């Protein structure tokens, strides 16, 4: 019981240093304040204990003293607020070109899918020193992706994507917990983040690869007949998806929204919600037809269309020829 008994969590990500610094600062401030209160209470209690013939001296109060111990704490609090907000903002804005991992939380297990196609259950292999962006959704209830060693936690909500990112700095295996109560095996929904040297990571990568996720996405894009409306030329009944991801989209009711993962997901599951300017709302909903994994693949594919030099969606027949080619694991459950 006593062999491995840490009093401080591992520090294995860039964020860990920032959070620890703020934590230690707050520990010091609170420690001083607690010390101040404890010593003054004990000292006053002892110094002014009741003695015969020594009455208590009535002191009404003093406005300046009241102001000092209102304004000074407020000042300290605001400093802490700003520092905390800076750390928070860094943690909530993923860097531009981070490698992406799609996470699907399901009652009591984590399914993770690299953009390069590897699929893992309850484990995530990442290389040291590279930014990893997690695009997460849940199939049932609210879970929460929590890696204490990275000081990172983000709830995973059903029905939409939530995003988190980290950059591992120290190779090793770290706990992955579910931090939002999600049912019987909530405490069993534990995984591991395996941080490897780039060489080991490459070796592991070449193992079970089923081709990049975007390629799987392209197959689904063809199988479901999306390509018949969303064509690379402009006569398609649906908007051309080339370069759409990340760009601002003009809607028919005047609003402009940026096409992020949630926009693409909503356009697939609930097309009527946001209609692009100049197009008819003819797209059927795919709610219940497309699984979370297929959805992730489609989003990855749409993203790949925005990368410079990405080939446009092949016309219907060309894409279908490809899907017959025997590639392992193209049928996503």
């Amino acid at each position, binding site marked *: 019981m006593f062999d491995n008994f840490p009093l401080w969590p591992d520090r294995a990500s860039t964020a860990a240093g920032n959070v620890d610094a703020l934590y230690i600062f707050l520990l010091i401030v609170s420690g001083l304040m607690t010390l101040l209160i404890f010593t003054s209470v004990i000292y006053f209690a002892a110094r002014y204990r009741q003695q015969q013939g020594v009455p208590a001296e009535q002191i009404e109060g003093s406005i300046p003293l009241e102001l000092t111990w209102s304004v000074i704490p407020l000042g300290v609090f605001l400093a802490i607020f700003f520092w905390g907000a800076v750390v928070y903002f860094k943690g909530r804005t993923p860097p531009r070109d981070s490698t992406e991992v799609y996470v699907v939380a399901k009652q009591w297990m984590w399914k993770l899918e690299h953009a390069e196609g590897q699929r893992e259950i309850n484990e995530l292999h990442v290389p040291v020193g590279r930014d990893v962006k997690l695009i997460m959704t849940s199939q049932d209830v609210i879970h929460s992706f929590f890696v204490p060693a990275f000081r990172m936690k983000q709830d995973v909500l059903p029905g939409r994507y939530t995003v988190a990112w980290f950059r591992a700095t120290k190779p090793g295996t770290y706990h992955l917990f579910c931090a939002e109560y999600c049912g019987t095996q909530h405490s069993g929904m534990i995984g591991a983040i395996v941080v490897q040297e780039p060489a080991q990571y490459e070796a592991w990568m070449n193992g079970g690869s089923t081709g990049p996720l975007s390629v799987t996405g392209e197959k689904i894009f063809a199988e479901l007949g999306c390509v018949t409306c969303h064509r690379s030329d402009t006569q398609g009944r649906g908007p051309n998806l080339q370069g759409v991801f990340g760009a601002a989209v003009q809607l028919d009711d005047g609003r402009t929204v940026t096409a992020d993962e949630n926009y693409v997901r909503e356009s697939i599951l*609930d097309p*009527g*919600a946001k209609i692009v300017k100049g197009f*008819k*709302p003819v797209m059927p*909903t795919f709610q219940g037809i497309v699984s979370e994994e297929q959805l992730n693949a489609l989003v990855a594919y749409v993203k790949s269309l925005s990368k410079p030099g990405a080939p446009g969606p092949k016309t219907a027949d060309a894409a279908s020829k490809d899907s017959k080619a025997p590639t392992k694991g193209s049928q996503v459950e």
Partner: protein
Amino acid sequence: MSDSQATAVQGEAHNPALLHHFVTEEQQRDASSLGMWIFLATEVMFFGGLFCAYLIYRGWYFGDFGAASKSIDALLGGTNTAVLICSSLTVVLAIWGAQTARRGLMIGSLILTMLFGLAFLGIKGKEYKDKFDEHHVPGVSFSFEHVPIPGHPDQYANPRHAEIFFALYFIMTGLHALHMVIGLGIFTWLLVMAWKGRFTPQYHTPLEVGGLYWHFVDIVWIYLFPLLYLIDRHP
């Protein structure tokens, strides 16, 4: 909603004499009215939670809400609003009748108020029956297919989002109707006491406190009518 409003009204002070723990009669009346005003504060926050849900989903699904709201008969809603406004008037007349010892006016106005209340519930019942026939009652039998969104004739409303509107519609108007039923209960009791000649120009606190409750239920409806019935009525 337990019938605590009835006790909150401190009605059956068998005689205008003072309740034991109050010092003066004015203190007792002020306490009762302050008590009712604070109770109305809790009611505002109680409906407030529903208005918050309504506000957020209206922002998200404006088109679907417009389509669903258009399927409700706004004329019935409008007449109901007028009915409640008239009932507020008769409540005020009843109180004025008590203040000026006009027994006939007081009792007549109380009866009229309750008739208006019943009329309101009747119209509400008709509305609910229409919704039931059109399968717009949320739950298993709900169906809202191929209903165009107002202003976008070629676009159909999403049935799931319309079901949220109807869920909010039935909960908000249902809760309001429940408060109306409790109001009718209070006013029956006030009528009985008025009939027994319990209210005099010096003592008619239960009438005033009951009136405050009734006017509050009217104010809730004044907000419910435009927000639920008139979301998107222009052609």
